[in-house]
């Protein structure tokens, strides 16, 4: 393998990994606060992509507007899912909310089939995304630079919200002790909504970039990336935002590199995530960063 090819693979891995990381953040934030695995999160990812398609083909919105609208609408749906399916079960045993999450996941998938059909839909890409950029011997698609950069900026924004703003302080407090936060005046339900909104917006951004990279939409398109992002969140230490980022990026890089170095194993591509999960759970059950509880949100 030449050096140029290695760089290319590394960049591809980083791209895929950033997309996993953006989804993983939503899993980890909701888990950090509610100890709930939001199985509907992979459908939120999928809806983000579909809404862009809808905006483009049905309302003839310009790309930029379609993307912003899709992210906002998806965030609203994420909040709505919590309000309708999880909030009424806040005091119920945790398994009830988990089952509700699985139900919402199926519901959203089927709703998408009803609204958009079950057949794969093509997304046409803006022309400027198709022309490879040459950097010495390394040829990369613009997306390969664009996705990690944008993801990085989104994550910086998230860190700012969580660590530098008042609602972020509220989030960090309720992730540790909901009741005490409540009597100190933190509007718990509003902060939980905000958490779902942020997580869903990031997942939508990921879904949209995913659709630009693999331009075919299907109602089940969220399942595999969603599952891998969940694994990335567990791998990084569920509840930890830095863990979700590191876990997502590592998973993406490992997946791409494994296929690059061992092309014979390409068919087992999706299995790497699970092997990684099993290994980490055996060595360090709390995940890479799970021990540092202070990062839990």
């Amino acid at each position, binding site marked *: 393998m030449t050096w140029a090819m290695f760089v290319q693979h590394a960049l591809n891995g980083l791209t895929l990994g950033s997309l996993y990381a953006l989804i993983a953040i939503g899993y980890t934030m909701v888990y950090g606060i509610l100890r709930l695995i939001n199985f509907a999160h992979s459908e939120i990812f999928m809806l983000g992509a579909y809404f862009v398609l809808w905006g483009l083909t049905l309302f003839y919105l310009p790309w930029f507007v379609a993307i912003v609208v899709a992210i906002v609408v998806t965030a609203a749906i994420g909040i709505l899912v919590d309000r309708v399916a999880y909030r009424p079960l806040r005091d119920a045993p945790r398994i009830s909310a988990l089952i509700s999450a699985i139900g919402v996941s199926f519901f959203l998938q089927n709703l998408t089939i009803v609204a958009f059909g079950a057949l794969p839909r093509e997304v046409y890409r803006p022309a400027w995304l198709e022309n490879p950029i040459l950097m010495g011997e390394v040829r990369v698609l613009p997306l390969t630079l664009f996705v990690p950069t944008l993801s990085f900026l989104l994550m910086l924004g998230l860190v700012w919200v969580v660590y530098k703003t*008042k609602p972020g*302080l*509220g989030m*960090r*407090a309720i992730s*540790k*002790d909901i*009741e*005490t*936060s*409540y*009597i*100190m*005046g*933190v*509007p718990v339900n509003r902060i939980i909504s905000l958490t779902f909104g942020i997580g869903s917006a990031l997942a939508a951004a990921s879904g949209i970039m995913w659709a630009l990279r693999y331009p075919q939409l299907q109602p089940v398109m969220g399942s595999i990336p969603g599952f891998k992002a969940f694994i990335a969140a567990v791998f990084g230490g569920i509840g930890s935002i830095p863990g979700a980022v590191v876990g997502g990026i590592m998973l993406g890089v490992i997946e791409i590199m494994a296929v690059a170095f061992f092309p014979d194993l390409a068919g087992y591509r999706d299995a790497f995530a699970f092997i990684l999960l099993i290994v980490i759970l055996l060595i360090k059950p709390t995940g890479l960063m799970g021990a540092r*509880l*202070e*990062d*839990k949100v």
Partner: protein
Amino acid sequence: MLKVQDLHVYYGGIHALKGISIEVPKGKVVTLIGCNGAGKSSTLRAVAGLIKNKKGRITYNGADLTSRDPVEIVKSGIVMSPEGRRIFPHLTVIENLRLGAYSRSDEPQILKDIEWIFELFPKLKDRKDQKGGTLSGGEQQMLALGRALMSAAEVVMMDEPSLGLAPMLVKEVFDIIAAINRQGKTVLLVEQNAFAALKIADYAYVLEVGAIVLEGTGAQLIADDRVKSAYLGG
């Protein structure tokens, strides 16, 4: 004045409070004493808005607070420092204090109040960027009280602030409660350390299995034979 009238609290089938009435006049220290499980915490938690399954009436300066949620209770001027301190171990001292001020938006006054807390508890100032979880038990209790005071509420309810502290620190806590009261705060104090509580209390209630069995001024109850034998160890 905070007024609780005929308060009943239920946990599933358990009837934990059976019609409690107490009054906490402005500027006073009122204490609630009683054995484990008497219902002291339940009373405070009901006032704080944490218990939905209750009957009775809770009013503050005439306004009905009975079915308000905890955020509304804080905003209306009543705050609780919970049993077991429950500071946020992963947040710094400053962040814990800021969380106490979450219901407020008067930033300049919040900054002044943080300074006020540091005057009240100088040890917290030295540790202001340290995580709450790294403080000693006594310091955590100071932080819990400081956090409650940061809400700027007029009525401060404290659930066993001396719990688990060394005797020297217990004295310090009671001195601070008296100081907080002198600075104008109304205090509703729950304590198992009956003698110390009665000494600083203007008025006191004795709670037994969910009902008030005795009440009077602090001095009256200290002198009362039943209180002496049951709560003051002789």
